[in-house]
């Protein structure tokens, strides 16, 4: 049995034991880490006794021991413990190794408390700073989650710079409600909305099919600077997240930012510079005179021949998507402090250009975290973050007006001349309503964010004795941002010209103010029995406020080159307010019997203005048990078994009705100047209940050979009851849809994680990790008629909610329809997903790579069809789809239109090298002579994101979503912004 006392010895740091021991042997020394830095405030204990001290600011310590030889143990947060046998009184140099495992030792799972990982009854994934930014600087925080732990499907909606990702934990958690996890940063509930910029007025994307958002906005978690993060815990489902109650059904991601370490002030400067480029361009159709004649007619052949003979055939795909976007990420941080006050401050500036001219992302983030111990019984910590970001996202995705760049490219032939003349005048596109080069160069679509996130926590030890203590924790947090969206379509654009039926210029300005704040108070009582049994009782109150106001002004008929919305012929305003207040309490009791059995029960009660009855309390219970068999003494000290834990956890969590689902309302319009109100086509329900997720998970954690091999396996089953559906209503009612609680959904899944260190020596170490995740969903109950949803109708492949079927099945018309009239063509759910992480260190050289394999899961891919209809598909003449081997792929796909959706539903499997990094570290020993030895370490290297991508999917990237992040029906593609890979050269210095 390991000496668990060590774990608690850091308490000694706070409690100064006067060493009134009769002078026998005085030992002194200093404690260094593996980077050659001193470690302040580390604990030094004479093994087997309660005699201990801590190192000072400079890592120096003195300790008196009763006799020699003596064994000293050294420990500090973030380091592996070490021991040293001392046989004489010479000064000692002890070394501590920074350890990822050590960081993982504690997982934050509760609102107020954390638990040792070895005692946790849930499979909580923890991701360290090293994993987030160590291999390569990720484009956004959520972009750093790919493949690093089992249980998540992370997916980018497009390749546009500035983010736009969805993170889904353990399968489909809701059909119409929120499916994105709750993000909590240092106790602050952080908004992760995607707010549309109102491009629909130009794209008319919602006119032909779905009314869902196709504006491709970024999601706001992209604002968070990955470099600031110390650790990130992922509570994947209700069993772990029940204590977060009615917002937790889609999981909770708890982010802890970096804190200062006491001691010498440390500085870090890092610079990453590189570029981004498209991972996969499709290329141009292999045109011949005959093919041009067949597809486009005689006139086109002449154009083709003359362009070909004079070398004027242009690869417009490359022209638009072929840019190398420059990337620069600069980060500066410093941290330090003394035993009373510690601080961390960081500043980051990102400047990234996209693969399309005029697109890019710029972000500045400033952070100051301060921890202050006012007295030995009261401490406060404050974390504050200011972010400015600006994303130019271009004009992509679906439209019904031929105006987005992607749609325009589908109609573009290599012999078309789209370049501006010497006066800068762009020709009108001969085959399309917009000229993509003109659109690219003249259209602005910008999102700007000014955001302030601040959180504060106060801890007050009300009472403390040997075997019990009572702590009060007060916490408040504020997340405030202003988001400006600016879309400008100047009047000289082909599709804005009055002579072409345009609106003579459109400016769309959106302004959103979002303010969330949350307050909470917790009491935590610990009580230990002499036998080693510990009881921890907690109770708390929470209160959350959400307030958002979006004003979207759309102006058309712009005056001259003005972009102000009042300088226009027609101006329209749309205001959307969202307000919500939640209030809740929780109580939880945790019993720890000698670390052998750890049992927890708790309940959360929540009410919310978002429920039909705002002041009705909804209760979310939880219970869990962890059994540490290795603590029972079955194995002796030298056994290969380090850990053998069995665990089971049950919990419930809620998911609010979508905003506005409670109401049946009119919207206001006008008819030739006469105001009118017409029904919104969705019928609300005042009595709608929150969805309730019930999750049971069980699993085991095993580790062997001094933790060099560890295995974790989890099985979960979660059901979602009172599923909120926007079910189709007979349209002759006057409504298209209604919100109802009308079904249940079940997800079952397996998560397996294996981590091993096959080789380990002083000079060479190889760490290898693999994780596996499989989820299957089923609609177990449906009290409304089965209905199709998402995408663009059964002709082109659509999703269908049907009892007994997967929640994400894709159906369509076809030759052998089932009794419901549709043929099942696929399922968006992957068969499984795996991540492979390799880290190889040879002396100062480190190589890491992360691979991700998604097997199965289908998309509805309509990009190819749109190019086929214009005769421009890259594979138009390839013959590998038609079973009879007659038709080229382009003609074949078009021939299937209206008779079968099969060809539009494509396997979206992929295997990617998500991250790769190669670094060389110069440590302080090597840098001793430079600048008087003030440099602690320099790290240089090369890294990349998505450098290798293997997939058999007929477009830029199987990871795509025309309809943004929310909902489960995301894998629909209509001419997206192509995704990109990143190459970065990194330099980092610690001093």
């Amino acid at each position, binding site marked *: 049995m390991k000496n668990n006392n060590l774990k608690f010895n850091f308490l000694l740091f706070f409690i100064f034991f006067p060493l009134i021991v009769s002078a026998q042997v005085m030992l002194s020394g200093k404690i260094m880490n593996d980077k050659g830095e001193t470690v302040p405030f580390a604990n030094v204990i004479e093994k087997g006794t309660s005699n201990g001290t801590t190192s000072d600011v400079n890592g120096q310590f003195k300790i008196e021991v009763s006799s020699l030889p003596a064994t000293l143990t050294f420990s500090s947060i973030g380091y592996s413990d070490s021991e040293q046998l001392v046989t004489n009184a010479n000064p000692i140099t002890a070394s501590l190794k920074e350890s990822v495992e050590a960081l993982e030792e504690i997982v934050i799972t509760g609102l107020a408390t954390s638990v040792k990982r070895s005692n946790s009854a849930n499979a909580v994934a923890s991701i360290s700073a090293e994993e987030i930014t160590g291999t390569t600087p990720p484009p956004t925080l959520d972009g750093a989650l790919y493949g690093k732990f089992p249980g998540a499907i992370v997916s980018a909606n497009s390749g546009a710079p500035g983010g736009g990702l969805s993170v889904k934990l353990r399968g489909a958690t809701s059909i119409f409600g929120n499916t994105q996890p709750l993000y909590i940063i240092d106790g602050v509930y952080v908004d992760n909305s995607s707010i549309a910029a109102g491009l629909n007025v130009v794209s008319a994307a919602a006119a032909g099919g779905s009314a869902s958002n196709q504006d491709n906005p970024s999601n706001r978690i992209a604002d968070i600077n990955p470099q600031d993060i110390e650790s990130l815990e992922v509570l994947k489902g209700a069993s772990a997240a029940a204590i977060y109650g009615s917002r937790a059904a889609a999981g909770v991601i708890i982010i802890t930012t970096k804190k200062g370490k006491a001691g010498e002030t440390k500085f870090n400067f890092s610079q990453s510079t590189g570029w981004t480029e498209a991972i996969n361009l499709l290329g141009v159709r292999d045109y011949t005179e005959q093919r041009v004649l067949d597809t486009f007619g005689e006139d086109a052949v002449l154009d083709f021949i003359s362009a070909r003979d004079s070398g004027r055939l242009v690869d417009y795909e490359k022209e638009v998507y072929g840019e190398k976007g420059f990337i620069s990420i600069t980060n500066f941080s410093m941290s330090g402090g003394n035993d009373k006050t510690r601080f961390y401050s960081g500043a980051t500036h990102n400047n990234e250009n996209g693969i399309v001219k005029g697109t890019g992302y710029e972000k500045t983030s400033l952070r100051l975290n301060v921890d202050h111990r*006012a007295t030995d019984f009261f401490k406060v910590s404050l974390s504050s973050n200011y972010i400015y970001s600006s994303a130019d996202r271009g004009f992509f995705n679906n439209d*019904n007006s*031929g105006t987005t760049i992607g*749609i325009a490219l*589908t*109609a573009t032939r290599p012999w078309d001349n789209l370049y501006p003349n010497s006066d800068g005048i762009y020709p*009108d*596109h001969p085959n*399309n*309503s917009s000229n993509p080069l003109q659109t690219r160069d003249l259209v602005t679509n910008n999102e700007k964010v000014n955001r302030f996130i601040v959180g504060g926590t*106060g801890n007050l030890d009300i009472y403390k004795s040997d075997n019990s203590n009572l702590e009060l924790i007060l916490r*408040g947090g504020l997340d405030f941002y202003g988001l400006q969206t600016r879309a400008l379509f100047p009047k000289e654009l082909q599709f804005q*010209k009055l*002579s*072409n*039926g345009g609106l003579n210029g459109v400016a769309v300005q959106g302004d959103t103010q979002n303010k969330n704040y949350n307050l909470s*108070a917790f009491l935590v009582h610990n009580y230990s029995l002499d036998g080693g049994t510990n009881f921890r009782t907690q109770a708390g*109150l929470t*209160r959350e406020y959400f307030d958002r106001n979006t004003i979207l002004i*759309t102006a058309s008929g712009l005056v001259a080159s003005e972009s102000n919305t009042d300088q226009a012929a*027609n101006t*329209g*305003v749309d205001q959307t307010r969202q*307000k919500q207040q939640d*209030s809740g*309490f929780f109580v939880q009791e945790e019993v720890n019997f000698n670390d052998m059995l750890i049992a927890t029960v708790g309940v959360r009660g929540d009410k919310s203005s978002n429920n039909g009855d705002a*002041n009705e309390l909804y209760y979310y219970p939880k219970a869990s048990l962890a059994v540490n068999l290795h603590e029972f003494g079955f194995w002796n000290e030298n056994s290969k078994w380090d850990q053998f834990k069995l665990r089971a956890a049950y919990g419930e969590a809620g998911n609010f009705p979508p905003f*506005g689902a*409670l109401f*049946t*309302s*009119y919207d*206001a319009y*006008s*008819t*030739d*100047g*006469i*105001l*009118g*109100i*017409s*029904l919104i*086509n969705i*019928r609300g329900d005042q009595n709608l209940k929150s969805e309730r997720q019930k999750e049971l998970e069980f699993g085991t954690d095993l580790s062997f050979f001094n933790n060099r091999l560890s295995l974790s396996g989890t099985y979960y089953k979660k059901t979602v009851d009172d599923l909120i559906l926007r079910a189709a*209503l*007979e*349209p*002759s*009612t*006057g409504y298209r849809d209604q919100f109802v609680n009308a079904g249940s959904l079940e997800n079952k899944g397996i998560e397996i994680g294996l981590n091993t260190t096959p080789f380990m020596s002083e000079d060479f170490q190889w760490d290898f990790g693999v994780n596996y995740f499989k989820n299957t969903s089923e609609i177990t109950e449906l009290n409304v008629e089965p209905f199709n949803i998402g995408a663009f*109708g*059964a*002709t082109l492949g*659509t999703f269908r909610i049907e009892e007994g079927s997967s929640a994400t099945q894709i159906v369509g018309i076809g030759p052998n329809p089932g009794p419901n009239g549709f043929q099942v063509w696929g399922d968006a759910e992957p068969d499984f997903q795996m991540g492979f992480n390799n880290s190889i260190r040879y002396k100062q050289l480190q190589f890491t790579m992360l691979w991700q394999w998604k097997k199965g899961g289908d998309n509805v891919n309509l990009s190819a069809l749109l190019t086929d209809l*214009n005769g421009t598909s890259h594979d138009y003449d390839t013959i590998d789809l038609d079973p009879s081997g007659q038709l080229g792929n382009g003609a074949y796909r*078009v*021939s299937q239109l*209206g*008779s079968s959706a099969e060809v539009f539903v494509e396997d979206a499997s992929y295997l990617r090298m998500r991250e790769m990094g190669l670094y060389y570290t110069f440590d302080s020993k090597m840098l001793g002579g430079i600048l008087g030895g003030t440099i602690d370490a320099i790290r240089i290297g090369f890294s990349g994101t998505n450098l290798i991508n293997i997939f058999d999917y007929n477009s830029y990237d199987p990871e795509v979503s025309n309809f943004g992040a929310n909902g489960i029906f995301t894998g629909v593609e209509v001419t997206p912004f192509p995704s990109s890979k990143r190459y970065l050269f990194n330099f980092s210095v610690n001093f």
Partner: protein
Amino acid sequence: MKNILIRILYCIPFFVGLVSCEVEEYSDLNNAEVSAFENDLNRGDLQDLIGGILYSSRVDLGIYYDDCGVIGREYYRFTSSDPRYTADLLGKENSTLDNNTFYTTRPWEARYRTVKNANLILGFLDNQDLSGQFTNQEINATRGFLQTFIGYELLLNLNMTYDNGIRIDVADENDLGPFVSRDQALNGILAFLDSGASNLASGGSQFPFVLSNGFSGFNTPGSFLQVNHAIAARVSAYLGDYSAVLSHLNNSFFSLGNLNEGVYYNFSEDQTDIVNPLFLAPEGSSAGQARVVQPDFVADADTDDLRLGKVFDLGDDLTLDGLTGNYVLNRYTGTNASIPMIRNEELILLYAEANISTNPGTTVSALNVIRAAAGLGDYSGPTDSASLEDELLNQRRYSLFAEGHRWIDMRRFGRLDELPLDRDGDDVWTQFPIPLTENQ
């Protein structure tokens, strides 16, 4: 030390706010709820609600007209963004009309939404004492206006589903009436129009609301009654009841004068309004975005026919998906051009039609009014019923071009097989399926 304790205590009241954990209850912060009108409906509210009828009757109207125009082979809808206009609607190869795709569902939903908007207002009028706000005549006039609209909107949906029928009784959203056959539906529509007519007749001299410009000349209960009869004349023609056609025409605004007199849908560029959905600037036409006129329209026309001004010669061909043409639709000439709901030219043609078997001479003279207006000489062909029917359909084709009639006319005369097929394997559909979500 004590000071610190006191300071800490100062913080506590801040958190005591937590304990008073009543949560505020919000109503719909962004929109007017339906329940807001269930009591104390005032004149301003009624104006807004009627304005909603004017609005929703135009929602997705463009899809309806494109459905009729494309299947009726008046024009093709070229768009690079949606292949289904040139595949499903034209019955390309194996394509069929889908019962859950926008061309079927969206106009259908929008028409029933207008019906619902109207039924809700009728409910507000029935279920509260409004004597302080409105006179009985005003309430009658409002009912008559709404019932006329309900009848008209139902007719447009029946035009789509034809023999598949429609629901007539949809006043109670929780207890919808059944789908009824075409004839039952037409008679049901006539019943709405009849009650509307009698309410309008006892509706006094003024509506308690104003209407858009498209109703100018017909914006009082008395004059709107003529519109009601004009619609009833069309419905009667669809039923083949020509004596009813003539009697309704008699009570309508029918004259052998101004062909364009009638009621119109208005459009504008106001941000909360709708622009004319059938307008695409001819100069901006491309294969990616155009309404290309079916070539026979020009080929079959008399070269002097002034109605050829409804199409625009691009000079060059546009080609998409195996379809080619060099004329584009020019029937509507701006984003705020109005679209007729019903106008006198149609009434004259209904008059001609109703007289074919009984008074061929009247038919010829009515047709000659149409021909003269189009710059053509008098009709000189044979005056047997079959020939007159040919001529009638020909005049309807050019007079009512792109107003949603060609397909319906050819269908009710059993002549869909005469419509041109432009590609091998194309089909002319008789009717749309009932939308999937009607659960039929």
